[in-house]
């Protein structure tokens, strides 16, 4: 066996991980939530919303340059002191866990609604958590290599499915342009949460071989994911019209279902399914890893892997019990999540950066171990 002495991601791999993490599950339903506010201007909302992602990426990577060997849980403690730092650490551990419960639930809901309506939700959730647990256990380097294969497949499938819709797309459906600025802003807020997922960089930076590339990885990752989401939104609007998109549960799934090229190329929803399962696996694994690493660092454990099993159980239980139905998920993500997630992904990093700059704090290795648990050989 090769001796993988240290976990190292290249800047490009980090960027690709960011792209998959933002894009994977978001693209299936995002256009509906944005169009509910912005109608035919939904794509402008997505464009505007990328700003949130870019700012988050900049904040996190700037902090990462100050504390290159630490995660946000660790440098939070450095900056704020032990007690407040522990509070912030807990917030991040809880955040990564909680966002994953929502993603896992969505993952199951689409499979249930769109493909296998009679299968119990627990089957989907259980399966993906077991697979993602393996991904989280294996660590970021393995995930990045898997993603090196998966992301090109996702982008290819996405490109093909959109290209097949050209014959049904009506460019005029995008007019009038920028009709109601307030609606565009509201739509941008509804999609801000998804771009703020770039916060995972705060847990991945210590695994990068060149920490200086973090900013580029984050910003480029947000832009690639953002323009892909914009393309999906544009097509959804051109095919269904601004009013209809807002009423579809899974607009991208609907897009693939309506593909018809001369009656020969039809029923290509397997493309959506492929993107969903492949991308869902990477996304859930990445957040799983972040949650496990954050909680182990918060607890001062030496090995992040010792938290993988309990975190998985927590994700599984919470994702099933915290939402009673699909409407609660979408209303949570478009409204409550703004107040629950954005302060964590945008507010806290900004605060930390300001304090670190004022106090002139910089630092190397942390009090708790970095992601060194993953340094060891991955043995099945």
């Amino acid at each position: 066996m090769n001796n993988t002495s240290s976990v190292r991601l290249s800047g490009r791999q980090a960027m690709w991980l960011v792209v998959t993490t933002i894009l994977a599950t978001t693209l299936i339903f995002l256009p509906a939530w944005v169009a509910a506010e912005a109608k035919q201007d939904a794509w402008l909302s997505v464009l505007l919303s990328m700003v949130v992602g870019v700012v988050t990426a900049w904040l996190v990577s700037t902090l990462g340059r100050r504390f290159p060997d630490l995660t946000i849980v660790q440098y939070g403690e450095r900056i704020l002191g032990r007690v407040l730092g522990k509070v912030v650490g807990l917030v991040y551990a809880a955040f990564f866990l909680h966002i994953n419960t929502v993603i896992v639930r969505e993952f199951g809901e689409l499979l249930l609604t769109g493909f296998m309506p009679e299968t119990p939700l627990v089957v989907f959730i259980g399966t993906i958590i077991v697979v993602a647990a393996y991904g989280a256990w294996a660590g970021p380097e393995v995930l990045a290599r898997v993603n090196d294969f998966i992301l090109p497949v996702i982008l290819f499938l996405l490109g093909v499915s959109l290209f097949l819709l050209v014959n049904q797309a009506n460019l005029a459906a995008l007019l009038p342009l920028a009709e109601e600025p307030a609606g565009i802003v509201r739509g941008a807020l509804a999609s801000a949460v998804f771009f703020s997922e770039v916060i995972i960089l705060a847990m991945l930076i210590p695994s990068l071989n060149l920490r200086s590339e973090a900013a580029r990885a984050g910003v480029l990752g947000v832009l690639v994911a953002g323009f892909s989401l914009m393309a999906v939104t544009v097509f959804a609007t051109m095919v269904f019209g601004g009013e209809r998109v807002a009423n579809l549960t899974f607009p991208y799934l609907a897009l693939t279902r309506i593909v018809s090229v001369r009656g020969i190329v039809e029923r290509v929803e397997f493309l959506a399914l492929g993107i969903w399962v492949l991308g869902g696996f990477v996304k859930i694994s990445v957040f799983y890893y972040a949650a496990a690493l954050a909680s182990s660092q918060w607890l001062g454990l030496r090995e992040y892997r010792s938290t993988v099993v309990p975190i998985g159980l927590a994700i599984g239980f919470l994702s099933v019990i915290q939402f009673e139905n699909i409407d609660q998920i979408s209303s949570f993500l478009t409204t409550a999540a703004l107040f629950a997630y954005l302060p964590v992904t945008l507010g806290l990093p900004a605060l930390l950066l300001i304090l670190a700059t004022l106090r002139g704090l910089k630092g190397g290795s942390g009090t708790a171990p970095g992601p060194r648990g993953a340094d060891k050989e991955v043995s099945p």
Partner: protein
Amino acid sequence: MTRFRRSIVLAGLVLTLLLLGTSCWNAVELDRRALVMGVGIDKAKEEGKIALTVQIVKPGQLPTPRRAPGPGPPVWVVTSTGYTVFDAVRNFVLQSGRKLFWAHMVVIVISEEVAREGLAPVLDFFDRDAEPRRLSKVIIAKGIAAKEIMKGQHELETIPAAAIRDLVEGFTSVSTAVSVNLNEFLKRMSAGGVEPVAARIEVVAAEEREKAEEKALQSGDDGGMAEDPRLKAPPRFRVTGAAVFKGDRLAGWLNRPETRGYLWTQGKVVSGIVVLKCPQNEKETIGIELIRSEGEIKPRVQEGRVVAEVKVKAEAHVGDVLCPLDLTKPETLRLLEKRMNTVIENEVRAAFRKAQEGLRADIFGVGAALHRSSPGQWKKLKDRWDEVFPEVQVEIKADAKIRRVNLVLKPAQPK
């Protein structure tokens, strides 16, 4: 050695998983599925109930390259009722023993009676459920129950529902009918400033049958006529014109010239024949074959009135000439083009007259076009668009080009 053993264990694990992971939870094999090809929606006799009539494929009766078709019709036509569409759909199981599979349904035929009361309630199931596609054609049955349409047969196509779809899609070669799928219908229904249209289907054979029966009555000899195979033949259908909706309610119909007038404005006239009168002799005619067309509506607000400028461009060939016309001269073609412009303008005007005066439904999307070009004006008008649209002033500009005369210059004449 340990590596070898490990790979054996791994291989065993993979094989076991492969065997266990072959199927989804509620898998149904293809030969156990009841494939619905088309559905007809009527009101049931009982108050408040809906009657669905479906065509289910009988796979054994379909011809394949290796096997001749079995005896009997290739589809099974069944009717079921329920308080909602889904209720009726599930009630089919009581008769079929299998749950119906909707993913291959190609047509949704709705009776005039149901359409007049509103389509939104009956279409929701087909929009919401994961099996049906939004590509199914929406068709309104004029003057006949949708059930009767489902019972019909077609001489060329084994599955009647597929034949109905072909009839609808065939509109492109005449451009006097419309083809609308569920997605397009719902898109227009939920958008502002544009009203939906749908295909219209009606019976052809019924009149013939009535005439024959009448004749039999008059002659007092029904024995012979009853054996006439035409009388027992299932009804034949024709898809022509268009059904016009206001919101989700059927408002009325367009006849064939009006339908083409409507299609001109949408740039959807693909092909078709325009019949012109001969210049020398008004009784004789010329057939012009359309090759392509473009149409555009440009609305503007002028002195408080909405003016819709309709621009139509058409390209055509000379298809057949029934009078001795000298087609070698460019002036002749120019003359024909002028006459063709008049025909196009008349058709568009007729469509607008019907939509504005008769049906008061903006099927052209004048409102939507106004929304696109001047959102400010639209904001002021949209709430009372129903009253504004009938007053919209229409300016029609047709620009026809006859490019070719096909294989003959002057028609052959007896000497």
